[in-house]
Structure formats: C-alpha cells, structure tokens
C-alpha cells in the first residue's frame, strides 16, 4: 500500500523584488513528500533552500505554482488560515534555537499551545511530557540562558512537538552545536522518524544526510538530484 502524501509542490517559483528589480530565487520546484518520510534538502548558501523552507513551512507564499500540504492548497489560504496550518500542522526547529529568552523552558514549550487556546494546567502537562521525551525532565523552570546549546535545541524540539504536528521542519538543527551534541539531537530526530513523524530537514552538510532516507540536492533554485540511499 502506498503511504499518504504529506506535501506536494508543483512548479513552485519564487522571486523577490529588490529596488524595482525582480530577483528570482526558485525556478520551478516539483517535490512530493509522503507521510513518515525523513527528507534532507541539501544545498549551498544562496541555492534557494531557505526560500523553499519558508514556503514549505507556510511562512511565505510562492510567486507561482501550487503547494498542497495535507491536501490543502496552501497558496490560496489567507493569513489566518496559514497561521492555523502552522499551529496545528508544522513544528519548527531552527539553527539558532529561537527560544524566547525571558520565558522558561516550560513556557517556551507551551507557546504553540497558548495560541491553540489550550488551558494552562493542560499545557503544563503536555510541556512536561514532551520535555521528558527529549530528555529534559525537571528542567522546565530553567531559562534558556541557563541551559547548554544542546539542551536549548532539545527545548526547541520539545516546543515543535508540543502541538503534535504532522511534520517537523528543521533548518540546520545541528549548525550551532558541537559534533557530540549534534549527534544527540540527530538521535532524537531518528527516534521521531521511527515513531512515524514526517521530517523535512535543510542542511549544507553532507554528513547529516546519513540519517535520512532521501536526499534532495538543490542548486540555483532547482532540484538537481533526488535520491534514496
């Protein structure tokens, strides 16, 4: 039986306007990702991979083409509907962690749940359970500044998981970590993948591709390679 489709990009083009000049970044990207897949998108800086991630993450709309996420046509959604899609469908993990420095680890994890209007006590329960899942049991009251880089990234992963997303979107998740903690983080990704979560990860490092079952190479705004090991 063929697995369900998670997302599909059809001839996605994206151009930015800079000082009256149109700067094309994506020249027509076609991509299909199935549920449960772990896809790595590789590319040098300036290749358009961040732009592609913005579009996949519903943070930005394509200039043309069609994008289906969970069988909904994303480019036709309004801003609030995009927010709703991110809130329930996508968990983000960033290179620079992007935790709010004034909130405790627990409150950071609760953040997506606040916007889902889940009541406080229930949020705390969920936060405690996902923090435990990433190995940070009992550290909910710490501020990000009191945690190591690896721990901060694990808080960020917990935050991404809190809303039980359909897909995890990671942008260079180990880029700010040393190789040992990076490996620990990738181990968490691996476990999530095994439990059935769809993961799309962007990286420029060849080593990271070892964890995923499919690697896509993007160059100059086009997909130039798509291979399963």
């Amino acid at each position: 039986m063929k697995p369900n489709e998670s997302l599909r990009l059809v001839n996605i083009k994206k151009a930015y306007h800079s000082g009256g000049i149109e700067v094309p970044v994506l020249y027509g990207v076609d991509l299909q990702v199935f549920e449960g897949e772990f896809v790595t998108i590789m590319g040098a800086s300036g290749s358009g991979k961040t732009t592609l991630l913005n579009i996949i993450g519903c943070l930005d709309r394509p200039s043309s083409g069609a994008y289906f996420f969970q069988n909904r046509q994303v480019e036709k959604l309004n801003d609030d509907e995009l927010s709703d899609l991110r809130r329930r469908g996508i968990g983000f993990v960033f290179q620079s962690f992007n935790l709010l420095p004034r909130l405790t680890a627990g409150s950071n994890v609760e953040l997506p749940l606040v916007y889902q209007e889940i009541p406080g006590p229930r949020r705390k329960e969920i936060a405690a359970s996902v923090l435990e899942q990433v190995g940070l049991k009992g550290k909910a009251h710490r501020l990000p500044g009191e945690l190591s880089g690896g721990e901060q990234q694990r808080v960020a992963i917990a935050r991404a998981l809190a809303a039980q997303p359909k897909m995890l979107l990671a942008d260079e998740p180990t880029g700010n970590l040393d190789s040992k903690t990076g490996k620990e983080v990738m181990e968490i990704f691996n476990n999530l993948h095994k439990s059935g979560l769809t993961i799309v990860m962007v990286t420029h490092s060849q080593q990271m591709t070892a964890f995923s079952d499919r690697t896509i190479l993007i160059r100059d705004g086009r997909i130039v390679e798509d291979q399963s090991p």
Partner: protein
Amino acid sequence: MTRDIVETAWQSLRAHRLRTGLSVLGIVIGIASFSIMYSVGEAARQKTIQALKELGGDILRVSTKADKDRPNREEISLNLKDLATIQATCPNVLDVSPEFTNNAEFFRAGKFQSFNVIGVLPIYFSMNKIQVARGHLISDHDLQYYLPVCLLGEELAVELFPEKEALGQMVPINGYLLKVVGIMKKTERLAAEDINRAALIPITLAQRLFPTKKIRTIYARGKDTNISTAELSQFFYRRFGEEQRFEIQSQKLILETQQKSIKIFEYVLWTIGSISLLVGGIGIMNIMLVSVTERVREIGIRRAVGATKWDIKIQFMFESILLCLLGGLGGATLGFLASRLISRSFQFSPVFSGKLLLLAISIATVLGIVCGTYPAVRAANQDPTIVLRYE
C-alpha cells in the same frame, strides 16, 4: 489566553523598568494635572459656595478707594457720625458696621511680627457670624467706657501666647495693654481681612489708640442688595460730591471674582494636562515602535508557532494600554498627594472621588489604544520568515 497576554505584557515592561518608568512620565504628569484640577478646583468651588451660604449674599462691603487720576489726593473716609446718617437716610439698610483696620506689632524670635487690629461695633459680630470659642464678645458697655479689651483670632492667640492660655492675658497694642476677653472661633470668611490672625477691639478705643480716626470700610446689610446699593451710592454722592471714590461690593460679587480665579487655575492645569498627555502619548508610541523593532525575532517565533496577526496585534496593544494605565495610576497618586498638599496650605479638603480614579483609568486606556494601534499594526505585519534567517 487573556492571562497570557497580561503576563507577557507585564514581563516585557518589567524587563525594561527604567525605560518603562521614563516613558510613562508624560502620562503621569498629565493625569496628575487633571486630578489636581478636578479635586482642588472642585474643593475651592465648594468652599466658596459654603462661605456664601454662611455669610449670606445680602451683605455689602463699601470701601473707599484712591483717585486714579490724582494718586496723591487723600482717600475719602468716614466717621462714626456718618454711620448714624446712613442708618437715618437709607431706609432699606438695616445694619451698618464699620471696619477700622490698623496695625500692631509684637516681638517674637528676634523679629517684629505685625498683625491687624480692627476696631468694631458689636453689630460686626452678628453680621460676620463671629462667635467666641472661649470668653465673651465685646459689648456695648465696653464700647461706651472705652474699656481696654480685645478679642483674638485663634491663630493670633497661639502666636502671641504659644505656651499658655491667651484668655485673660494682656496684649500690648500701640503702647497700651489690652486684656484678652475672648478667643474667636475660626471662620471661613473669605471677603476682607483675615480675622483669624487679627485682634478685634472696641472702635471707640481704637480711634483713641491710633493716630487716625478715618474709617475706610463699612459693611451694610439691607432687605434688598440692589436698593441698598442705590441708597448707599446716593449717600456717598451727597457726602463727597463725587463718584468713583468708593466701591460697593456684594459678598456675592467678591465670591464670583474668586470663582473666576479658580477657573483660571483650572484652565492652566487643563492646558498643562492636555499638553503632557499629548507629549506623553507620543512618547508611548515611540517606545512601542522601538519595542517592535527590538522584537522582530520574537514576533517571528510567535508567528511561526501559530500566532495570527491578530494575536500579535492584541499583545502589543495590551502592552501599550498597560503602560498608559501604569502612568495613569501613577498620575492619580501624584495628583492625590499634590492636592492634599495644596489644600493644606489653602485650608480646605480636596475632593477625591472614585469617579476621578475611574476617569483617570478611562483616559489612560483610551490613550493606550490610540498610541498602541500603529505600533501594534506594525508588529503584526512583521515578516515571519525572519526566524529562518541566521544571525
């Protein structure tokens, strides 16, 4: 959700305590001005109304005045015989009472202090609603025999005899010793001399103690103030042959003049308040715009995890409202303290009601909404893709 918004806003303001404090200063001053304007203005108005009620608006104060065209010319004056003439020729005037004011000095703490010595007839007490706290008033008998007696105002009594009971003591006035026969109750009389800091003595005695006998102020009470005024004018015209050398004021008129100065005081505070609120509001807007610029990444993160533009807008809007509310409460407190201080020196109690606090809160809230809207819209329209930019 609401609690989260409140907490987020509060945390953000707490994180920049100094900045928060400085940025609400304009609002604090503005709201304080309005509070003072309201509480002191209202209290002063109530006091004048009260004074009018106590004295009655039917008393006229007639005083002679200098000739504007010939400033060196001596002022006209009256004597006791004139008073009898007024009673005889002005049928509408029921009572006439002179106020014969001079100065005396006493030596205290290394310097001379002066106080008013007012020569009066017994009718003065009933017309001005003067009562004694202790002792008794000056009587016709005292007047007839030029007895060396005096009444002291409450404040003067304490000044002259700080350590003992003034009643029964001797007070030196212009070289003569006068016995204190009574201490007057404090009065709220607004019109003329401050009798709380004066000595009242029989007018007959006063005209002997002081080198002059000239009476320059009289009080008259009539059935109808308009008719009394006309009759008194006629008398003065007959007596001196000129107008413009005396003025007749009703207590009502004097109080109206005071009302006018209250109004001016209120306008000044209103202007200060409005300008402060305007400038303060611009300050709030500015600090909110700075806050938005500083927090583009935070906004991006919140948007990425699912916040809508509306969520972001509400968050910043509430922060602005909270900022203004802090200013409003600070201003109301400052206004309250300032009003009490001002009132203490003017001897009336300030009006400070819940209505005023409610008004301060409303003004602050409206200001918070007005000044927060543009920064909040700017915050909501920040590009969320910033989260994928690495710095």
